């Protein structure tokens, strides 16, 4: 469901990026909102920006749309510096986080606004606007004013308005946040469909990592104006480059300790008198360096007998159980007081659960499940 697997221009050194951020810094007075970002985004990508509130996602988009100029560095579009090109001369459209719908215009006129500026023939404007309104399922509300529709409907109007001109680059700032889950999923697929049909490049901000995973060809995780990691969704999930990314995307257990590299794998002395844990690492790590092992809860198996064949085995007591319907998360307390999460799929009825509070259990995971990180 993600973009076709053969599509990864970022691995091709010949490929020319559509957008290139070159050491871009943006300051507001003393405050640095974007801190020396270098980033390539390729044509036809579905690029997701993820990060905590205030990390600079909107600012990055506003620079692409032309509302802010970089304080330092340059942004190239098709190889040309776009500093100073006004927003109305850029082949980009932005969906605003605040929607920015025109309150004096009806839903229809909001969607048709951009088309009319292009001086398209009336019937084309009409047809295109109707098509967009149908796409976001707002047909019955076309004649209402923005203050007469619900928050989620407004969000869809904003989306339709941004999509209407079919620009080369679409910037969507949290386009689906106000929608219910079902509508959000439908719209996600709609967006991917549009993307496939039109070849538009999407840059999308989202707070919903599942959404980023579903739609994005690549995900950039940001923190305090910096990009921490850019990678495909599966790479971000499986091989995060820092505990920050591991923690930001999905759930994770972090265990720290001194490193002990042995034949390509890393041993971690994580507790006195316990055998070391082993994991994989793509970086060179010196002996004795403090490192962190990140293990996803769903990769931690829970059992009442000590498993013989796993390289990482720890003992503990069930501290808490969170039942989430399809899965259960066990919070297991180790003898050192540390809590490790283990997730199991609930294939059986809850009454027949194997473990309950205060049970002594064993947790285990393979060495490929544990990713060893420096920071």
């Amino acid at each position: 469901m993600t973009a076709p697997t053969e599509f990864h221009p970022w691995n091709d050194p010949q490929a020319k990026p559509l957008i290139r951020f070159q050491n871009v810094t943006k300051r507001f007075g003393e405050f640095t909102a974007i801190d020396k970002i270098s980033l390539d985004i390729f044509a036809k990508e579905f690029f997701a920006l993820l990060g905590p509130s205030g990390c600079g996602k909107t600012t990055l988009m506003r620079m692409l749309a032309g509302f802010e100029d970089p304080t330092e560095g340059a942004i190239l579009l098709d190889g040309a510096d776009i500093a100073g090109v006004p927003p109305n001369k850029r082949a980009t459209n932005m969906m605003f986080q605040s929607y920015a719908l025109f309150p004096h215009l009806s839903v229809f006129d909001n969607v048709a606004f951009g088309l009319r500026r292009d001086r398209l023939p009336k019937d084309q404007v009409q047809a295109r606007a109707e098509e967009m309104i149908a796409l976001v399922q707002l047909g019955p509300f076309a004649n209402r004013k923005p203050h007469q529709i619900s928050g989620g409907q407004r969000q869809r109007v904003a989306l339709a308005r941004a999509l209407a001109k079919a620009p080369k680059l679409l910037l969507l700032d949290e386009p689906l946040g106000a929608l219910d889950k079902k509508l959000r999923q439908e719209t996600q697929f709609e967006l991917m469909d549009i993307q496939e049909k039109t070849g538009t490049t999407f840059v999308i901000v989202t707070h919903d990592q599942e959404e980023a995973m579903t739609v994005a060809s690549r995900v950039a995780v940001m923190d305090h104006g910096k990009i921490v990691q850019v990678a495909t969704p599966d790479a971000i999930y499986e091989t995060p480059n820092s505990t920050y990314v591991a923690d930001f995307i999905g759930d994770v257990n972090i265990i720290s300790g001194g490193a002990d590299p042995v034949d390509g794998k890393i041993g971690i002395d994580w507790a006195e008198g316990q055998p070391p844990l082993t994991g994989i690492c793509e970086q060179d790590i010196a002996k004795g360096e403090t490192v962190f092992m990140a293990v996803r809860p769903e990769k931690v198996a829970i059992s009442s007998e000590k498993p013989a064949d796993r390289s990482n085995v720890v003992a503990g007591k069930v501290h808490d159980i969170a039942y989430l319907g399809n899965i259960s998360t066990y919070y297991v307390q180790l003898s050192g007081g540390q809590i490790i999460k283990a997730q199991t799929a609930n294939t059986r009825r809850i009454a027949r659960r194997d473990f309950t509070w205060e049970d002594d259990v064993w947790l285990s995971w393979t060495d490929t499940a544990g990713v060893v990180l420096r920071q």
Partner: protein
Amino acid sequence: MWGPYLMRRFALISIPYLWLLALFLVPFVIVFKISLSDIALSIPPYTPQFDPSAGWPGVTAFLSDLDLENFVFLTTDDLYWRAYLSSLQIAVTSTVLTLLVGYPLAYGMANAPDRWRPTLIMLVILPFWTSFLIRVYSWKGILAGSGYLNQFLLGMGVISDPLTILNTNTAVYIGIVYTYLPFMVLPIYAALERLDGSLLEAAEDLGCSRKSAFWLVTVPLSKPGIIAGSFLVFIPALGEFVIPDLLGGSKTLMIGKVLFEEFDKNRDWPVASAVAVILLLILIIPIILFQRNEQKQREAEQ
């Protein structure tokens, strides 16, 4: 029968109505009654007088003496309708002029840095601290044949003969624009200040130039302010008396002046009242429109 809550509510709601009744409706009824009377050499100078001591026959006699004679009279002398028309023309023209001056001012204020705005608003209101009469009077000194304006223009060599502005309609326009400018600026400023800047960004993003974004977004969204400001200028300008009297010439015909002359020089209260009643009827239309605009705006803001 009524709970204390309803009583209190009723009392609260009735205050503005009592206010309107006492200060608007009662005076209007009195003026209207006078407009139906006849001029007389007495104090007050009209007849019939209502005499409650005469009982019911007194009332009927009083009522039968009232007639529409004065309104008929207004139609026979073309001075009156010409004065109404000329007032309308002057009020409309000066409203448009005030808008043309006031909008850029309000726009500049709304786009000024935040910390300047309170000062700018102060500056707009500041003239109110001086008496209106003195301010209009001082325009005489500016606009007169040997006034400051002519001295300045002659000194600069822009003109070789002094301009005659004082005692013409131009001076009246200047006076009205000057006097009522704050009433135009403040509502427009309020509308512009509320305008969400991201709307203009959205317009630009969708292909508008700065200029067309102004016409397609800023102007429509400041419309409630424009309408409110225009009525606040138009309504008092229509009945304006002091400005045409002080700055206008003998040819400046305004209904306010006619009204004053009927009352003061001719002591013809009934005709003056009839003139006032017609003026009010003319004003009721824009007042209702104004209220509608306010109402619509309130609904849109919910």
